[in-house]
């Protein structure tokens, strides 16, 4: 009844049974056949997704069972799980996992606490809160590579602003080569990452805070609940879905961290900031061991797939935010 195209259907004269073209036309009638229209609309996206993500991922997966070394192409061979076994029995791999976990837990943990605190601060509407709310988005918008560049320059051993500031304040007697100590470098990279990423938490939590019902707080205030009680008994439980979403997104991002490591330390010093994405990159593009590089990247993917699953479940089981 909605059809506006069928009027000029060409062949006429009372067909007894629909021929092929009529059946095709009916099949492609988007008014009656939603599936055909849907397929047409999603086809470009499906092709691009298949070509750019799914098939490459599967290809990488297959490659991870091969001994494939660009430096020795004649030795290419199927070796089953050997690449994985090599990593799982390799101390260095576990150290890398440990460093990646450290980076993830510490940076995401601090970002969450800082982000929630700042969101609550903005919600309390102190003097200048509107300006703060606008300004907070700036570090997030600064490109990751620029963020790394800024902090690398600030931490510079010879001419860095941090050394200059601490020296002028009399807190250090001589300049400190900040990024040359393995454990220290990791913490400084985390510091830089927090500056860039905590605004994301603030934005997400702020959005969630505006949806909280004010009546609850009024009731709690009447009942004599302290500020801390209101925070732990009302705000935190109500924010739980939003916090979970932020937690999963940031954990996935932090676990596959690459850009800021590349720009600030390149995995050094003495592998102090060697995280799993960076090791995978080195394995593949520096040592040209494609097979084991693929295995590493697949280990990252597996972990992220678990997180992605949790994330999708969260989105569908809880009415998250907004």
């Amino acid at each position, binding site marked *: 009844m909605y059809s506006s195209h069928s009027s000029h259907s060409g062949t006429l004269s009372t067909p007894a049974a629909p021929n092929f073209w009529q059946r095709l036309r009916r099949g492609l009638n988007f008014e009656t056949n939603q599936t055909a229209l849907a397929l047409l609309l999603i086809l470009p996206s499906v092709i691009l997704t298949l070509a750019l993500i799914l098939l*490459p991922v599967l290809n990488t997966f297959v490659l991870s069972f091969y001994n494939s070394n660009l430096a020795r192409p004649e030795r290419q061979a199927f070796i089953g799980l050997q690449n994985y076994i090599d990593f799982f029995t390799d101390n260095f791999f576990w150290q890398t996992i440990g460093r990646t976990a450290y980076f993830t837990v510490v940076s995401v943990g601090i970002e969450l606490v800082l982000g929630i605190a700042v969101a609550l601060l903005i919600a309390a509407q102190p003097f200048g809160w509107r300006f703060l709310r606008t300004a907070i988005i700036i570090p997030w918008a600064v490109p990751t590579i620029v963020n790394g560049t800024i902090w690398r320059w600030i931490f510079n051993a010879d001419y860095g602003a941090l050394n200059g500031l601490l020296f002028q304040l009399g807190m250090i007697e001589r300049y400190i080569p900040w990024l040359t100590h393995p454990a220290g470098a990791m913490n400084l990279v985390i510091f830089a990452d927090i500056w860039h990423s905590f605004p994301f938490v603030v934005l997400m939590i702020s959005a969630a805070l505006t949806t909280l019902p004010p009546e609850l707080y009024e009731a709690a205030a009447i009942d004599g609940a302290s500020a801390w009680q209101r925070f732990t008994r009302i705000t935190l439980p109500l924010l739980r879905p939003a916090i979970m979403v932020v937690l999963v997104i940031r954990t996935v991002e932090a676990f596959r961290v690459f850009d800021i490591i590349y720009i600030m330390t390149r995995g050094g010093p003495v592998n102090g900031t060697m995280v799993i994405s960076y090791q995978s990159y080195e394995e593949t593009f520096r040592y040209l061991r494609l097979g084991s590089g693929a295995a590493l990247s697949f280990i990252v993917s597996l972990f992220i797939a678990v997180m992605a699953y949790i994330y999708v479940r969260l989105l569908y089981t809880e009415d998250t935010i907004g």
Partner: protein
Amino acid sequence: MTQRPGLLQKMFLNVCVILLLIYVFAPLAWLFISSISTRAELLVIPPHWIPEQPTLQNYADILFPGAETSRAAQDFGEALGNSIIVSAAVTLISLVVGALAAYAFARLTFPFRQSGLLAIVGLRMLPAVSVVIPLYVILRDLTLLNTRTALVLLYLSFTLPFVIWVMTSFFLSLPRELEDAARVDGCSRLGALWRVIIPISTPGLVATGVFAFLLAWDEFFFALLFTSTPIAKTVPVAIAEFTGRNAIDFSAQATGGVLAAIPPVVLALIFQRYIVRGLTAGAVKG
């Protein structure tokens, strides 16, 4: 939240605000100051917090290259152009392709609708490392290495799922009656999409587009691996290369940083409200 805070509390909150603003702006201020300092002045110990001879020479070199402009500055100018072209193309394509798919996911019934959408979102989270080797081989065989076309294709792998996801939830939030009314009036399904849905979705499309642009502008990993000359290099790669050179020109590097940060920061400030909405619709900035 509704209780009147005491004077002490108020002062504490104010101090927090000030400290936060310093934390946010001090690194950026230092980047800007470094960019307008001369190369020699940046190497003074202790540092000059306010440059004695501020100069815009670095900006002029990059934005208006002349015969004596250094190679690095010229390359950076080209990188800016590449970044703008690639990001704009990626944004446009992913908006068109993604919005059509999103409409199908939001409004039509077809097999595997739900699981298809979830698969697209889940795949989006995979790390770039896990797709990079096969894509490198394919693009090499297509002789597309070191081209902007390759970058546009590669960037679609993360902007497209993002656009589909956000626009689906946007379309779902629109009242179905609008379309139904148009179709009763004789509009076809595609007609209703074109004449009714797209016009009222402009805010959503703009916001999603801005976000996709930010994602593309920020991208580093693909650009690092798939470009090798100024023909296709983007801004993040150009900046990373400053650090790779033997004698680092901090002042030029800072200028590059400022220029790279201006477009996304300005966009984020203008579209702040939309961006928050995009984020809360389940977005991921990679």
